């Protein structure tokens, strides 16, 4: 199993009531699969959109990217800097 740190920002942190949590998924799970686990285990996460922006170890990735033990995945609301 891989232990993944999942971080929430801005509105997603408000939805879930937390900024970070730890989630276990099978090694080489995709971020989509990780998201399903997050929805099942983190209160409020069911209200996350079906396909949020995601970052893996500080880089934006698609939802089919695969995770490894110790990775950090961040779920990012629509970006609005500037």
């Amino acid at each position, binding site marked *: 199993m891989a232990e993944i740190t999942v*971080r929430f*920002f*801005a*509105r*997603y942190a408000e*939805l879930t009531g937390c900024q970070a949590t730890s989630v276990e998924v099978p090694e080489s799970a995709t971020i989509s699969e990780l998201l399903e686990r997050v929805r099942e285990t983190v209160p409020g996460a069911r*209200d*996350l*959109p*079906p*396909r*949020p*922006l*995601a*970052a893996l170890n*500080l*880089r*934006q990735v*698609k*939802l089919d990217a695969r995770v490894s033990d110790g990775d950090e995945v*961040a*779920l*990012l*609301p*629509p*970006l*609005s*800097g*500037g």
Partner: protein
Amino acid sequence: MNKLTRARISVEALLGQIQSGERGGTCVFLGTVRNDGDVTAIDYSAYDEMAREEIVRLIDEAQARWPAAKIIVQHRLGVVPVGEASVAIVAAAPHRDEAFTVCRHMIEEIKKRLPIWKKEIHADGTSTWVDPSGKQIAGGLRDS
């Protein structure tokens, strides 16, 4: 130099770091908090570690494309009142065409790629997240 900051942006200080005899054109872009409706300020938050790395990546990519250019980016975090700058880009190059091009390129990429979020603060004390997609759901839909 390139950074996320909670202090007011000093354009003079940025210019001092970038102007030189080799660079004949310097463009400054400032994004300023606008008084839309009853907005009094915007509270900016970020995924700090990623935003810092992304600024470096953006500048590296731009300098690979325009090697003679020099670029500085600063973005404010925290509460920025109406009328103050939230983001500054200074791009200097040997000639003005390149300076304008690089400056424009940088603000467009910043808006697309920096993990930073705005919360508008209204005159009545309420606040709302800004969703540039305009959708009334709790987040984005794209995954690329």
